[in-house]
């Protein structure tokens, strides 16, 4: 129990947090963080534990989101059915993909996953009779309050972390890590590498697809560019895991918090700090700066990728010892 003390305290805090902090904007951000915890944790299982780096999280996220959206749009069912089916449909996509890509060693999986995301976006854009194309899908949200969404997202995030924890302590986890460390060695001790990579991929797809379905329910609107975005979904998933710590249980959770916060800082141009500065200075110059900063979140993102990979290759959790040392020295 002792090792779980901090996570349990945190969980308790998270349970009461939205009751204390009722600001919808803040609750919205927390929901996003929790969604990213789920996605990042799923990616981490596949890449961090099994060593199969995917550039295609968006494929599964988008499929999950569209499953929910289309059930409601075409069949008039509640989009919540998507929460049950989104993950499963994502697995249906993952299966043939893994079947093609996994027997090939080397860069093929990473490249194939990148292509998969693009293919799915193209399909969602072109197949207008099914997906409404670029127009996107709009549904009625069930709740006005953010609280139900918050608790569902929390359950999903906690569930995904528990899942990964259970996996890492079982035969499955040992097999995943063995594959990551050396595929030849893994095969030589009787591990069916293709099968276990497939299982890992399907778990990743399931978690990501379910998160996508929740996103649809929560946001009420999706279009191909949002949910199949290479940068905003696939790369973000990678960053969440890497910033937090690849191959660590809580890394993606830490990464999700940091990344969503950073993204928001840039989107809102430093929580309006610059805006305040602008008003104070009353100048045109600061207006321009503010405008640029809020437009520049992708640039900041890019720079962040570069900086993080160079300096924190193992993430905040993985490199925690190094970070502490750096501060002590400093």
């Amino acid at each position: 129990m002792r090792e779980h003390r901090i996570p349990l305290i945190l969980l308790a805090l998270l349970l009461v947090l939205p009751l204390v902090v009722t600001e919808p904007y803040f609750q919205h951000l927390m929901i996003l963080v929790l969604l990213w915890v789920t996605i990042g944790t799923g990616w981490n299982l596949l890449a961090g534990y099994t060593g199969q780096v995917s550039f295609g999280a968006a494929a599964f996220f988008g499929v999950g989101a569209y499953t929910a959206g289309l059930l409601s749009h075409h069949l008039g069912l509640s989009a919540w059915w998507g929460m049950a089916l989104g993950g499963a449909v994502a697995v249906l996509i993952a299966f043939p993909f893994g079947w093609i890509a996994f027997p090939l060693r080397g860069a093929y999986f990473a490249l194939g996953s990148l292509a998969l995301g693009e293919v799915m976006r193209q399909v969602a854009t072109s197949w207008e009779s099914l997906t409404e194309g670029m127009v996107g899908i709009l549904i009625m949200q069930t709740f006005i309050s953010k609280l139900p969404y918050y608790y569902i997202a929390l359950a999903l995030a906690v569930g995904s972390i528990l899942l990964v924890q259970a996996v890492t302590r079982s035969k499955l986890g040992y097999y995943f890590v063995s594959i990551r460390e050396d595929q030849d060695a893994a095969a030589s001790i009787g591990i069916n590498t293709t099968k276990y990579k497939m299982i890992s991929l399907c778990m990743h797809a399931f978690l990501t697809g379910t998160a996508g379905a929740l996103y649809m329910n929560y946001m009420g609107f999706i279009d191909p560019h949002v949910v199949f975005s290479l940068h905003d979904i696939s790369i973000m998933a990678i960053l969440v895991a890497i910033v937090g710590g690849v191959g660590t249980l809580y890394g993606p959770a830490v990464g999700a918090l940091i990344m969503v916060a950073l993204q928001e800082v840039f989107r809102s141009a430093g929580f309006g700090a610059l805006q305040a500065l602008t008003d104070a200075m009353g100048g045109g110059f600061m207006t321009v700066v503010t405008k640029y900063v809020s437009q520049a979140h992708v640039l900041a993102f890019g720079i962040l990728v570069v900086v993080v990979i160079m300096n924190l290759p193992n993430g905040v959790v993985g490199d925690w010892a190094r970070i502490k040392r750096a501060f002590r020295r400093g």
Partner: protein
Amino acid sequence: MEVFFQTLVAGVLKGGLYALIGIGMTLIMGVMGIINLAHGQMMMLAMYLTYVCFHFLGIDPYVTLLVSVPCLFLVGVGVQKYTLNPLLKIESLLPENQVLMTVGVGMVLTEVARFIFTSNYVSVKTSYSDATFFIGGISFSVALTIAFGFACALTAGMFWFLLKTDLGRSIRAVAQDAEAASLMGVNADRIRTITMGMGAGLVAAAGTLLLPIYYLFPDIGGPFTRKAFVITILGGLGSTVGAILGGVTLGLAEAFGATYIGMDYEDMMGLVIFILVLLFLPGGFKRLTKV
């Protein structure tokens, strides 16, 4: 039938440029073992350079080759030296760090371009941009034909360089076995740096040659990165001859896709090819040509 030949010609001409893009990518793949996901973004940068030279200084795009190629060579060198080579010394869990780094570099390049040039489309309209000539009833775009000529010359030059010069041989040695090459006294870091520079230079040439018949905006890099990547897979990772075949194949597939299926599907063709290759010819043309 005429439509068919027209499409064939357009496909081959465009394929020549694609080959140029693909060779750069495949060189990098061969030597560094990574896919450069900033490849198209580097091309975009070269196109903006060409645009600036034309728009503000009135320099003809073909002359700009003398500017864009060396400039991008330096950009490639800088990227390799300051972002990718250091990664080789950092230990991390995932070997794909370098690929991810190129994604980051690509994002930075795109956004910097957006900062400076905004998201608007621009183009370079020269006297020959829309000019055509006819051979046997089939029209040839003047600019595309010239570009094709340049592409062939550059490709031939590239081959000569790789086969006949010491530096070229060192590059091939590192591509075959970096460790063995190091033992024989080749400075692998330097070779990597030069290779990245050359890859960037080649794609810069392609971008500059393409600009008179194309348009330009910051996000154009992504689609071209994807094309380069399809060409490289199609050719067989690391194969130069394969990259040429792959480039021409993609050019043809896009042309025929656009003519016979619909304009919208031009971009889809690459992805379709990608999947077909993975399914039926994993290893690409390299499997067939063995080079």
